[in-house]
């Protein structure tokens, strides 16, 4: 077996770091290797340059400029101090810069955006920078990724510290040239005396290889700032352009080391043996059933958690299948079967009910309405079903615990694992590495905890990877919802009342990397006793409806713990479900009013006269107009006229927002009336997230988000009987494929360039909002094409065909 052979056992210091020259300016593959090796080469560089600084406290020494590399990789691992500029930015002697940020990437290329923002503020060329993310010992704790807040929230301290570094460098140049700062010019890392351009100095000459030693202020990391102010939007040169993502070449040529690729000296392989049914208890384990397998090391079990450990991966897989375990099944059903889920949810006594939010008098308005529509919508559990199952490698060397993980919240995993193992936080670090898409799954990471537990038990580095059936059955699920909605129109077709009730099967919703709720803690019996209450949610729109009630409840399935139907945050946790119901219903009301769906919404958006502080209502109007224009929307009510052919076509609109990001989408569908098959032929999205950092990367993020929701609209549903999940692979749990791909996708970035009238519009979280409207847009398009309203997700062929037959649209 090939292993990482450096003394520190840190895979980031594999052979290429020795080959790579510290003064290479990274481009393409080399650029990404900077992420992999940069800190080590940097540490070595510092050591080699004789810049060892002694006398720092451990805390001060932590972070990118830690001076004793071997000591740091051996642990302990104190937190980098976010109030030190040196924790964020290192300027190299060759006039390049490395940024250290406390974020991770789930595949949207946020690292490229961070480099753009920080390079702009620092006044250095984009391609003279690199970015290191998410490893708890060398990057400040910005929480990792989640909630689409990378740019919106965490981008601000990044920009401010880069601006502060620029300020300090200008002060240094001012002292060197004995010229006031305002008589200096700076461009691409070179400071020049305006009156005498022959006098210039580079950032690298000023501070390369040295510490800034500049203290920052701020009560928390989001508030971190120096004295300098960030640039006005008009002065940004790199933000708003589209440098190619630096991580992509290494993902295309096979050179990237992912978290799955970690190999350590003495490393062994583990596989879990999951309970065959939910809630099963271990009665006995027959280790002799696997002892004869070559390479077998141990069965590790505690409570109902069972794992096998072997020298080689295929041996561990074989042992996990072969191990004889006697389980005791629960005496009562753990949950209703999936076909009975919604009946159960409607009839269950809620575990919690939010006090309804009431505007006007909806009951009276409904009683006086000219027309009332009352319908229900259902969305099943939908899994994260990550493309690669959960995985992590843990190294217990030196009495510390290092976890190599793709956990999107690596800092939370560090704290969670420390609590889980009863180790001081300083002895645990998480090295974040790329992995299959997270979208919330790796915020409730399981494999990292399991690897750490097993590594501590075995005393050797342990690599854990789940099998496909485990991941699909036992990953965290987006909660199932059922909605009951009533709406009333007056005689003129105006929407005068809306009554919204959402009920989510979301009791015991999992937190982020919690030592007391992570699956291994549940199975071991070390979980806490009180489940999280969970939540349902209400629609996000700017519609002016005079009488409105929104109410939500949460219900529990019979089995609360040790269940594969455990809910977690799935890419805008409740948004796609809630927006499916809300925006389908607005369409139903428009149809009842015989109004065009765009016009009907525009009436509701323009009815109120005041804008909020973020221009959200005005921007909602702009976005709905933009999507209709980009699509070429013809004004007419739905449904359209059906032709006589087999293929019926239609278009549907939906709109939503998240925080300050506003999105409207139109789906154009073809419905085969003989098979029930739906093909979404075209998608159009208008999107306003304020200031756009990298338009081309944003377009692809929006496309991916829309198609993820298209997969949820057409295919995804977790199926189960009363004791186990029966969706266990890509056959029993289908997903979107190449065959489903729209022929055309248009993305309109409404605020793609700084708007002259609102130039200070800040950047807002862009990604998850794009997931919200699409399921409704597809449902509305199917209705437009067929006159048949689908109120139950997903719109698989059989369900659509049954609805077409019931409505006599089938031919």
């Amino acid at each position, binding site marked *: *077996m*090939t292993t990482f052979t450096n003394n520190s056992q840190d895979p980031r210091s594999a052979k290429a770091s020795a080959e790579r020259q510290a003064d290479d300016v990274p481009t393409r593959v080399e650029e990404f290797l900077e992420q992999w090796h940069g800190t080590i080469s940097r540490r070595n560089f510092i050591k080699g340059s004789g810049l060892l600084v002694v006398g720092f406290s451990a805390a001060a020494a932590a972070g990118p400029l830690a001076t004793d590399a071997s000591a740091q990789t051996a642990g302990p691992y104190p937190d980098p101090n976010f109030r030190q500029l040196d924790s964020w930015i290192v300027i190299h002697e060759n006039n390049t810069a490395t940024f250290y940020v406390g974020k991770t990437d*789930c*595949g*949207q290329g946020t690292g490229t955006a961070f480099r753009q923002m920080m390079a702009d503020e620092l006044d250095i060329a984009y*391609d003279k920078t690199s970015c290191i993310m998410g490893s708890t010992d060398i990057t400040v704790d910005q929480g990792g990724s989640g909630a689409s807040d990378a740019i919106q929230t965490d981008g601000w301290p990044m920009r401010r510290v880069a601006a502060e570094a620029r300020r300090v460098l200008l002060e240094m140049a001012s002292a060197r040239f004995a010229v006031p700062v305002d008589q200096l010019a700076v461009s691409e890392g070179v400071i020049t005396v305006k009156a005498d351009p022959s006098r210039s100095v580079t950032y690298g000459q000023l501070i390369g290889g040295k510490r800034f030693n500049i203290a920052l202020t701020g009560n928390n990391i989001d508030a971190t700032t120096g004295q300098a102010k960030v640039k006005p939007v008009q002065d940004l040169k*790199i933000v*708003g*352009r*589209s*440098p*190619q*993502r*630096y*991580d*992509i070449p290494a*993902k*295309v*040529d*096979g050179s*990237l080391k*992912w978290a799955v690729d970690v*190999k350590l000296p003495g490393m062994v392989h583990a596989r879990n043996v999951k309970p065959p049914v939910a809630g099963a208890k271990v009665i006995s384990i027959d280790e002799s059933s696997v002892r004869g397998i*070559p390479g077998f090391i141990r069965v590790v079990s505690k409570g109902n958690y069972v794992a096998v450990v072997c020298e*080689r*991966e*295929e041996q561990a*897989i074989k042992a996990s299948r072969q191990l004889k375990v006697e389980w005791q099944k629960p005496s009562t059903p753990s949950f209703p079967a999936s076909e009975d889920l919604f009946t159960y949810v409607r009839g269950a006594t809620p575990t919690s009910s939010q006090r309804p939010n009431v505007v006007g008098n909806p009951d009276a308005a409904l009683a006086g309405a000219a027309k009332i529509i009352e319908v229900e919508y259902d969305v099943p559990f939908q899994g994260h*079903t990550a*493309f*690669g*199952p959960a995985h992590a490698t843990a190294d217990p060397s030196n009495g510390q615990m290092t976890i190599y993980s793709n956990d999107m919240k690596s800092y939370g995993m560090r704290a969670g694992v420390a609590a889980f193992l009863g180790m001081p936080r300083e002895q645990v670090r998480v090295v974040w590495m*790329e*992995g*299959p*898409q997270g979208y919330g799954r790796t915020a409730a990471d399981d494999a990292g905890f399991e690897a750490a537990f097993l590594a501590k038990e075995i005393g050797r580095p342990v690599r854990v*990877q789940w099998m*496909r059936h485990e991941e699909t059955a036992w990953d965290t699920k987006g909660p199932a919802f059922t909605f009951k909605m009533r709406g009333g129109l007056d005689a003129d077709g105006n929407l005068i009342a809306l009554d919204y009730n959402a009920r989510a099967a979301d009791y015991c919703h999992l937190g982020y990397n919690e030592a007391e709720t992570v699956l291994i803690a549940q199975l071991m019996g070390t979980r806490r006793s009180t489940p999280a209450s969970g939540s349902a949610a209400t629609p996000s729109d700017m519609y002016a409806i005079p009488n409105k009630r929104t109410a939500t409840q949460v219900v529990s399935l019979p089995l609360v713990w040790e269940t594969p139907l455990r809910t977690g945050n799935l890419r805008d946790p409740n948004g796609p479900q809630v927006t499916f119901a809300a925006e389908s219903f607005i369409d139903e009301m428009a149809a009842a009013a015989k109004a065009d769906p765009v016009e009907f919404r525009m009436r509701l958006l323009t009815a109120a006269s005041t804008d909020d502080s973020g221009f959200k209502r005005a921007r909602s109007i702009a976005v709905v107009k933009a999507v209709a224009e980009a699509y070429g929307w013809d004004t007419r009510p739905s449904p359209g006229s059906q032709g006589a052919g087999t293929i019926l076509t239609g278009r549907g609109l939906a709109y939503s927002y998240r925080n300050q990001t506003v999105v409207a989408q139109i789906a154009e569908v073809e419905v085969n009336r003989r098979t029930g098959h739906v093909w979404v032929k075209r998608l159009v999205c208008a999107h306003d997230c304020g200031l756009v950092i990298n*338009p*081309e990367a944003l377009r*692809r*993020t929006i*496309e*991916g988000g*829309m*198609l*993820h929701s298209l*997969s949820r609209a057409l295919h995804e549903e977790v199926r189960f009987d009363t004791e186990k999940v029966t969706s266990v*692979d*890509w056959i029993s749990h289908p997903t979107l*494929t*190449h*065959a*489903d*791909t*729209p*022929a*055309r*996708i*248009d993305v309109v970035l409404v605020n793609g360039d700084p708007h002259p009238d609102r130039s200070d519009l800040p950047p807002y979280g862009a990604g998850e909002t794009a997931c919200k409207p699409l399921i409704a847009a597809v449902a509305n398009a199917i209705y437009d094409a067929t006159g048949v309203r689908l109120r139950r997700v997903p719109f698989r062929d059989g369900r659509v065909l049954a609805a077409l037959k019931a409505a006599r649209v089938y031919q």
Partner: protein
Amino acid sequence: MSKITLKVNGRAQTLDVDPSTPLLYILRNDLDLQGPRFGCGLGQCGACTVIMNGAAVRSCITPCSAVKGEITTLEGLAREGNLHPVQRAWIDEQVPQCGFCQNGQIMTAKVLLDRNPNPTDAQIREGMVGVLCRCMTYYRVQAAIKRAAASMATGTASGKGRLRAQDGRPASAGQGDIA
């Protein structure tokens, strides 16, 4: 255990392994390759795809004893330091999101284009249908296949071309590639 000789990316290597071991684990754990990855272990997703005798093969369900002929992995597509036109098209089109599935997308696309240098949209969909992506990059994958086909036909593959909007227009001013 038995001795098995594999020729991978032009190098022959002899290993002492259980002959029933799926090729994937040999490639990853013994030969230290990281292009092919575990996605399902069932041959359903394509993450583990390698090229064997000109065909895209799922290494997770291929026992190493069944390997006949030379194997090419993602790492072996480049020639003399130059990326394969399919890889260049992937970068030009900025296809990946997380990128975990892209080994299967690229290797399958390479075989598709070897067999049919000028595929129609329908042929691309049909040829790629068994290769899954949970970031749903399908739209860009299909665009990149067309881009690669065009560049291979004209021999004008560009490694660092300007990003283009999907409809083929150049990206608008201020949005160009500055890498």
